């Protein structure tokens, strides 16, 4: 059976202590929360660590509540996914986030995995998420030890795909994340946490700890409606091969004031479908606009042959799923079938 390699395991009791440990630790130090990403990756030996620092003993790092007295909702970085999907505030104010979170992997995994872990989850690729021996048989890949991205051998870039289901919906909802290090803290829009590079996919420095995800005030919930749609082979366990997060704000007259459509798993970072979103602004969510929005969104997506399903078909599905998500927001009947839609 597969087993982890040895490492030093530390469980700091405060955030300060954790920040110091990671600052002093150097490149062979890694943070872990739920472990559902790091341990499999270390089991397969494509992520390595001499020292692993667990964030799970830090009081206050997990939890859901109103931030700083405003209507802002704070979700602590080590809050487990099951706690989020079942939390009344989340279900009431951000049902699309609850949907996204409950679509992640499987129930036992969500009892362990955390929001911070999902936001920072390593990019994935069928040439990369393999055992040490398997990767030897392809002489490794650009993401780890090798020199060629086997997804696109002429590409200078790694095409591993973003695998976070929470990121697209958090981005669509204008969420921010707090990053803390011994050098201080910074609060950034979640979309600027990512880079479109399969290897260096986070702007977070290795010594920074993601402590909070902050969702803006949803007291005007009436004006904002969001939806999350995810495509995957099976209704559980599988990673998404496409996730669509859409948030639409309407003015008093029912016209779209603002729209944000984000795509997950079809690029090395969550992708903003800008034109598809802009198209909707100022108009109403009629069937034609939704179709066109889907067509425009497809142009942003870069599905590659590094996950499940036929690549070209996944492109078609971007159109269909964006349209389906928008239909849900518009309250239009769903004409199509999505067997695994949560």
């Amino acid at each position, binding site marked *: 059976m597969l087993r982890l390699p040895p490492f030093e395991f530390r469980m700091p009791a405060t955030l300060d202590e954790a920040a110091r440990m990671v600052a002093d630790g150097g490149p062979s130090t890694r943070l872990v929360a739920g472990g559902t990403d790091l341990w499999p990756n270390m089991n397969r030996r494509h992520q390595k660590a001499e020292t692993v620092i667990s964030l799970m003993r830090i009081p206050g790092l997990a939890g859901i509540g109103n931030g700083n007295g405003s209507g802002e909702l704070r979700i602590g970085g080590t809050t487990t996914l099951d706690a989020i999907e079942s939390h009344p505030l989340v279900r009431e104010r951000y049902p699309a986030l609850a949907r996204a979170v409950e679509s992640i992997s499987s129930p036992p995994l969500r009892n362990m995995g955390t929001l911070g872990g999902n936001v920072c989850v390593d990019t994935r690729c069928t040439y990369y998420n393999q055992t040490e021996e398997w990767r030897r048989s392809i002489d490794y890949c650009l993401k780890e030890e090798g020199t060629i991205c086997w997804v696109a051998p002429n590409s200078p870039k790694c095409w591993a795909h973003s695998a976070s289901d929470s990121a697209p919906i958090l981005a669509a909802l204008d969420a921010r994340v707090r990053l803390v290090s011994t050098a201080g803290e910074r609060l950034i829009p979640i979309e600027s946490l990512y880079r479109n590079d399969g290897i260096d996919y986070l702007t977070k420095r290795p010594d920074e700890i993601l402590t909070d995800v902050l969702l803006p005030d949803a007291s005007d919930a009436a004006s904002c409606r969001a939806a999350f749609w995810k495509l995957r082979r099976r209704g559980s366990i599988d990673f998404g091969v496409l996730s669509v997060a859409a948030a639409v704000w309407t003015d008093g007259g029912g016209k779209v004031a603002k729209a944000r459509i984000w795509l997950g798993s079809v690029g090395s970072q969550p992708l903003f479908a800008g034109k598809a979103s802009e198209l909707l602004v100022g108009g109403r969510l009629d069937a034609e606009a939704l179709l066109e929005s889907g067509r425009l969104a497809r142009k942003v997506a870069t599905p590659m042959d590094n996950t499940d399903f036929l690549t070209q078909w996944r492109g078609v599905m971007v159109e269909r799923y964006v349209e389906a998500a928008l239909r849900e927001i518009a309250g239009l009947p769903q004409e*199509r079938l999505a067997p695994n839609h949560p």
Partner: protein
Amino acid sequence: MAEPVRSPGDAPAERPERDTRIVGKPFRRVDGRAKVTGVTRFADDLSFPRMCHMRLVRSTVPHARIVSIDTSEAARVPGVLGFLTGASMPNTFGILPVSEDEHALCPDKVRMVGDPVAAVAAVTEDAAYEAALKVRVDYEPLATIASVEEALATPEPRIHGYSKAGGNVHKRASLEFGDVEGAFTEADLVLEDLCYYEGNTHLAMEQHAAVAIPEDVDRVTVYSSTQTPHYVHRALSKVLDLPASRIRVIACPNGGGFGGKSDPFNHEIVAAKMALQLGRPVKIVLSREEVFYCHRGRHPVQMWIKTGFKKDGTITGQHFKSALDGGAYGSYGVASTYYTGALQTVTYKLPHYKFEGVRTYTNKPPCGPKRGHGTPQPRFAWEVHLDKAAHRLGIDPAELRLRNLEDPETVTANWLTVGSIGLGRCIEAVVEGSGWRERYGRLGEGRGLGLACGAYLCGAGLPIYWNHMPQSGVQLQLDRSGRVAVFCGETEIGQGSDSVLAAIVAEILGVELHDIRLCVGDTDLTPVDLGSYSSRVTLMMGNAAVEAAERARDLLASAVSAQLEVPADRLVFAERRVFDAEDPGRGLDFADACVAAEARFGTLGTVGSYTPPRSPGRYNGAGVGPSPTYSYSACVLEVEVDPATGLYRPIHVWIAHDIGRSINPVLVLGQIEGSVYMGLGEAMMEEQVFRRLPKRLSGALVHKAPSMLEYKSPTFLEMPPVTSYIIEDPDARGPFGAKEVGQGPLLPVPPALANAVFDAVGVRIDQVPVQPHMILKALEAKRQGAEPRYGPASFPAVDFGETIRVPTPAQGGDGHATKEFERRLHRSKRATSGTMAEREEALEGKKDLTTK
């Protein structure tokens, strides 16, 4: 322990009237309590003093000569105890005598990524793994072959040099029964189809594991998660060069098998060798990735089928071709090849039939027997083809099948003897249950019903290696305590064979399941049973158990008769008593009956054995397909399809299975439902597929994703509700009339899905798994006025060799081929019942069967 299924204070649910007390009624499986309490000991749960751990170093290249193996760096890992390489075990092994083409460790050449080249033992598994990663192997690469087409086009380099078909063709066969061209001439409609069935694997939840324990210098015990301890025993003896009498193989309960643990495997043999080398117990547990490399799963098969029909639907004849991608080793491949052509004849009357098949080697893990062994692929083609024929002829698909039903108790065109056939009742059950007559073709766009049937063996008629001995043996030992110890080589893989064995013995001796103590799957202690494969256990072991138990009953009856002065034939065995049927108060407790018998006869023991009847087929290739009798299934599947995306989901499955007679209906249902699940997995999403990298950059040829995550096994959320019907039509050849259920019900499921998709959206998907993009593509073709179909466009150009022509029973044939040399060959007694392997060797002149 086992007991009738009931909730507290309640009587068991009653259904059929039975003349039996245990057989035919639901009872808790005898291993049920152990399995729900975590007590069952699987191979990896075993631990012994001084036990060390082993890991295999596996090839990272698909085809190469081994230049050197350097263990020096690995040897420095703390805790490492020793290494083995291929030079230490030069003898080959393999499940079929005709293709013993495997080495425990590759001595000179690797044929696939995952081929084992060395073994490391260490004090911990951590250390064994670290050391295995540090073993350095240098390879000289050879050209690789990834498909049947490449194998046909690339005779050199040969992956194996022994096959008589030459090049990289492992096996080819061409058999004609009757006159197929004549049959097409007299047909009103002749249809041709091309189909493809993707390869897939068993994915038993338990990863293979083995523990080897040395005794003295030349004795060894191997515990293993194997379905076939007897064949492992033989392979160990051959490769270790030890007499079989010094080797003990114990089959642990398998955490699922499905055919994936039916071959002897490298790791079992190497563990034994290592244990003998180190003088201490050695355990090996394969990783999930290694299990994908062991494989032996469903062959990817390309198929071509051509059938003639009269206007009224009568089938005039069929010509069927198959091309199997075999992988790097023989495994059961010769049998698999014939199985793709053997059972087409047992469901519907097929007066003239021609089969041509080829299996090639490729540099991928070897394919072999998975649930349905070689028959789900042709069954898919046959049943989809029939659906198309029904539409062309304007006959309801269920009606077309009913009109052509094979007759029970007949001999088919290819000389298979069929027994009871409950297929008609199966079709009627699912047709009625699903509302087929009212609903088929009328559910509107996006929703459809599909119907298909299937049939399977109840045990392969011939053993895998040449012998005249029984295929199953059961030994009973009784003593004055009244307990009945039952010894049998059978292997519990989850299918319930322990429960069948205990139930049959308890039924005949009139005792409770609690009174039975089983000892199974132990080559030192139990009589040989060939193993849990080919759906043979219930029928073969069951018949052996009946014989042993009846002999024990006679023994006790004779003693009791003498003591009570009641004629033996008036004694009844029931309720743990032996008593006079005419005066039930007059009798003995079962234990006292044992006392009487032990006093009269001494130590009490009986044996029973089972040898299948001889099949009438006498042609070369007749060894594959015969079975004492066959089981039948019919299925209707309802599907919902989204024409905009191609996404679909099965809504409901109705399935009926002709079991002959249930030994335990609740376990029968479990096998039916599990078969439906596995069939749906294959039909919808499971595939064992491989990829090359761009050849200018890399010679890699790798399993695309050998993991539980990427090999898509349906979860609770994909599995639709299933309505099952058990059809009972007792067959005298089976114990209490029982036939098989472990594999047959899988067969109709994939074609039922494809046929349902057609009913839903009017396109044909002629391959599995049925993927959404295929439906979308076929719908596009339909819109553009092209053929509304997704599937293979051609069949490889294959030279199947000279056709063996065999007159059918209706033509007055005698089971022999018409060719003179075959007649000569089969004149001797041995040749008439020889295994396929023996026949092949004889045909090649390697063995003279007539003089031995």
